[in-house]
């Protein structure tokens, strides 16, 4: 089961991803990111605190947007990844490609650096 919610705090667009992202539900994550881009969001925080599982379909969604984000000067920050999911990110070395922090505060502060 997947639930994606969005919120806005000051000029930062928040996307919270809850439950599981697999080949059937990765489209929802992709749509959420696409919508943020279409709305000209430049600061996007993805809250993965309640993400229990993500497969390559979901990871691929993040990776597929990297080039576009760089071109359009969009900063994407992820936080709240649990131990099991973090292990999956590290198998692919994604921590080197994505900005991953430990808390919402760190995510917000990262835009002020």
């Amino acid at each position, binding site marked *: 089961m997947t639930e994606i919610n969005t919120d806005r705090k000051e000029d930062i667009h928040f996307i919270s991803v809850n439950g599981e992202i697999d080949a059937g539900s*990765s489209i929802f994550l992709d749509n959420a990111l696409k919508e943020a881009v279409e709305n000209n969001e430049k600061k996007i925080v993805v809250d993965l605190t309640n993400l229990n*599982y993500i*497969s390559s*379909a979901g990871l691929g969604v993040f*990776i597929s947007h990297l080039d576009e984000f760089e071109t359009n000067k969009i900063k994407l920050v992820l936080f709240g990844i649990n131990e099991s999911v973090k*292990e999956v990110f590290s198998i692919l070395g994604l921590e080197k490609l994505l900005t991953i922090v430990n808390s919402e505060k760190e995510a917000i502060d990262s835009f002020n650096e």
Partner: protein
Amino acid sequence: MSSNLIIGCSKDELVKIRQFTSDALEDQKVPDLQAHKLVLAVDEVCANLIIHANNCNPENQIEFDIQFNPKQIVFTFKDKGVGFDINQYESPSMEEIVSTRRQGGLGLMLVKRIMDKIEFSTEKNHNICRLIKTYP
């Protein structure tokens, strides 16, 4: 000891195979972190079989079996779709995946890094894929 499951080739069935695998691994007291990766590898192979080998046709079936041996866990998938030998597939590099903005290519990379051995064969009209995890 073994347990088996039959699912239709629909992406909706992926949660079923994950839960089945997770339950079986928990019964065998496989540590959570390790179990999570094994469930992931199973999910990745199954997703590929559903989407690419069987074109998401829910009338096609995948037989899935888990065999617990003293030093190995063997995950076996049998289907009648388009045969695909993971061992013959060369995953694109991460640079290529990023620069081409593609969403695919990471799944088999994960399976190869998680599992110790992958076997593929065709018997009669079945494709058989075995993922093997070895424990010291």
